[in-house]
């Protein structure tokens, strides 16, 4: 799969000197001695599958709350559904970085969290009642952002929003669309989880080789791509206007729920750091992860352990995010510099991950940066 990441600046190898004289053949992965299978096993059994399981359960809660709501829409049931959406969206922040197996082949991420959601497409689907939610054309009319629009964005006040599901002439259409959105997310996630539990987990863990299709290579590329695109660019850079002539506050994640952007971003940085350290999703147990791999290879940068530098940078990013407004749209509109400063702190880890870590692990980048020339 070829992905293109349009970056403001091109991302590159930071070579301070370019001599590539020959040398002894050390670090010839995967025979470097690190237990690559143990890391893959930890990823699969303690992180990826538990994340998908939790997400699947939380989406199940959305489906139940939705069924309850459309059966007889009330404020209490709307609140209940909104809470279910929030809880699931937080778990999603831990899942977006995994783009292997069925997730990759079904474009799962594009069906779950493309924002800004396209209100025109949603409304037209609702009017026409004729849609295929799996169609690429509907990537921006489904998933968490679309549900968010249905729960928070239809009108200014809750009573007006409720009226779309009660008194509006199209109330049945709205209920159906909301229902279909929730069901679709649940179905997709269930399939993914089933796939992992029925064979994919074993082949993932067994594929320890260092090649473009090796599990570690794929996951590490997904991880860095997520860090640069899903996390850095989507949540911060794009709304802050780092890729456009002007800031775009309507591009934030959780635009309609507004005061939820920061919560999601903080979940995101936790997920990123936990994955790096190999920390289990359901406990504080810590097993083989990228940190351990780098430490095993004794990767030093400017006298410090690369893994410590990366963890410190994640900590700094979290601290900086914590200083932002709960609503990133509000932050962009009131003090965008804080937003771009946060982007810059996040960006510092891109260098460590994409240059230093990939060099140490001898992994090639599988997505390209286009600088526009």
């Amino acid at each position, binding site marked *: 799969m070829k992905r293109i990441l349009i970056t403001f600046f091109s991302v590159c190898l930071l*070579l301070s*000197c370019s001599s590539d*004289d020959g040398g002894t053949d050390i670090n010839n992965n995967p025979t470097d001695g690190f237990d690559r299978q143990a890391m893959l096993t930890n990823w699969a059994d303690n992180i990826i599958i538990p994340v998908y399981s939790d997400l699947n359960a939380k989406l199940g809660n959305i489906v139940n709350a939705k069924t309850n709501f459309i059966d007889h829409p009330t404020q209490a049931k709307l609140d209940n559904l909104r809470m279910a959406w929030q809880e699931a969206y937080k778990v999603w922040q831990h899942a977006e970085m995994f783009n292997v197996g069925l997730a990759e082949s079904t474009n799962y991420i594009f069906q779950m969290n493309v924002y800004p959601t396209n209100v025109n497409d949603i409304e037209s689907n609702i009017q026409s009642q004729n849609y295929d939610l799996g169609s690429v054309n509907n990537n921006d009319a489904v998933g968490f952002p679309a549900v968010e629009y249905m729960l928070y964005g239809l009108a200014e006040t809750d009573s007006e929003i409720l009226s779309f599901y009660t008194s509006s002439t199209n109330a049945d259409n709205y209920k159906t669309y909301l229902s279909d959105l929730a069901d679709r997310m649940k179905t997709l996630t269930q399939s993914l989880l089933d796939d992992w539990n029925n064979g994919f987990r074993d082949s993932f863990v067994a594929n320890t080789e260092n090649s473009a299709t090796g599990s570690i290579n794929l996951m590490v590329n997904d991880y860095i791509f997520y860090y640069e695109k899903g996390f850095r660019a989507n949540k911060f850079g794009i709304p802050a206007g780092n890729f456009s002539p002007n800031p775009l506050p309507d591009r934030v994640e959780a635009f309609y729920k507004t005061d939820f952007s920061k919560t999601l971003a903080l979940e995101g940085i936790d997920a990123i750091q936990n994955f790096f350290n190999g920390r289990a999703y359901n406990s504080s147990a810590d097993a083989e992860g990228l940190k351990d791999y780098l430490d095993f290879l004794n990767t030093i940068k400017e006298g410090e352990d690369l893994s410590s530098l990366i963890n410190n940078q994640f900590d700094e990013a979290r601290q900086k995010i914590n200083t932002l407004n709960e609503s990133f749209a509000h932050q962009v509109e009131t003090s965008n510099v804080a937003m*771009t400063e946060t982007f*810059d702190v996040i960006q510092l880890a891109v260098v460590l991950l994409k240059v230093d870590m990939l*060099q140490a692990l001898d992994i090639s980048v599988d997505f390209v940066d286009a600088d526009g020339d």
Partner: protein
Amino acid sequence: MRRSILSLSILALIFTSCSDDDSVTTVSSDVEAPASYTFEREGQSTVSFSGQTTRILMGDELNTSLLDNTQTETELLSMFAHQQGDSDFLNNELNASDKNIRSKTAASRDFFFTNSTASNAIKTQFETWISEQVNEIFTAWDDTAAEGVAGQIQEAGGGSIRYVNAKGLEYNQAIIKGLIGALMTDQMLNNYLSPAVLDQADNIANNDNDITEEGKNYTTMEHKWDEAFGYLYGTDNPTNPQLNQDSFLNKYLSRVENDEDFAGIAQEIYDAFKLGRAAIVAKEYELRDQQAELIKEKVSEIIGIRSVYYLQQGKNFLANDKGAAFHDLSEGFGFIYSLKFTRQPNSDSPYFTANEVDTMLTSLLEGNGFWDVSEQTLDDFSDQIAARFNFTVEQAAD
């Protein structure tokens, strides 16, 4: 094959330290540069820098339009931040382009990759100057400039009319001379000549194995080098540069070359570009980087020399010809702004930091700005700038 080569370069990185970073020296090498900047693969030219040509041409049109008082603020800002398909330029090829000036302003890998905040501030500075040109200058087009009053001021002896703000600054000069640093120099020295860009991802392995870009006959590394070249020669004849072919670096390389104290600099820069490109073809990356360091030094020098030149010219006219003085000081203002994008060879630093530059510029505009700047201040700044480069104030002043 590609993987093992990559591993070796990584090994070299991890286990060897750089030993060649102390000065611009030459290593013995068998690489010979061609007579002109001509490189081919299977009989076809591999040299390509159309994106740079496009941006220079956009800058040239912006330069003209900044003195056309029928232009609106929106029209001028749209020339700076052109969107593909919009009719912002007279030249329809530019209108069709997906390039613009703004996205490459203060956007180099080395200086701004982890500093989008500073990058945004610089982009905003240019937009502010453009807006002020319309809102302060165009609105006072026929007024007579005076201390604290924007308007026109004529050079002595029936000379050119200059359009200045209340402090005597021509915004159009600040913008165009500032872009020499923020666009051309920054992209050339701090982006395309940077090992971080030249050696990005698998560039070394691909260049070593002559793996060209998809649908192209050049390797990525070759192309990056050409893009650096294009910011200087993009509107010139690349095989036989005439110089003075744009409003930016090419023009001022010509000016510096025509000062006998610096004659030969144009050939030095051209030769370095040729040899560096030949070194890439020969896969001699140490030689390549030496040429890059030489270019960093010499191109930075253009900006240093012209900064001092205009400060000194301004000083000479200050007493008796305010119009001429303000014009020179406005050009100097833009060149000093550009100093923050220069690059000291074998270092991570510009010749003057952004803070140092901003301090000088603030000082020049203090009070009534050019109306009451002292000759002493202009001499002090000239001395400061020359001292950091390898030339004297006297050499630069004429």
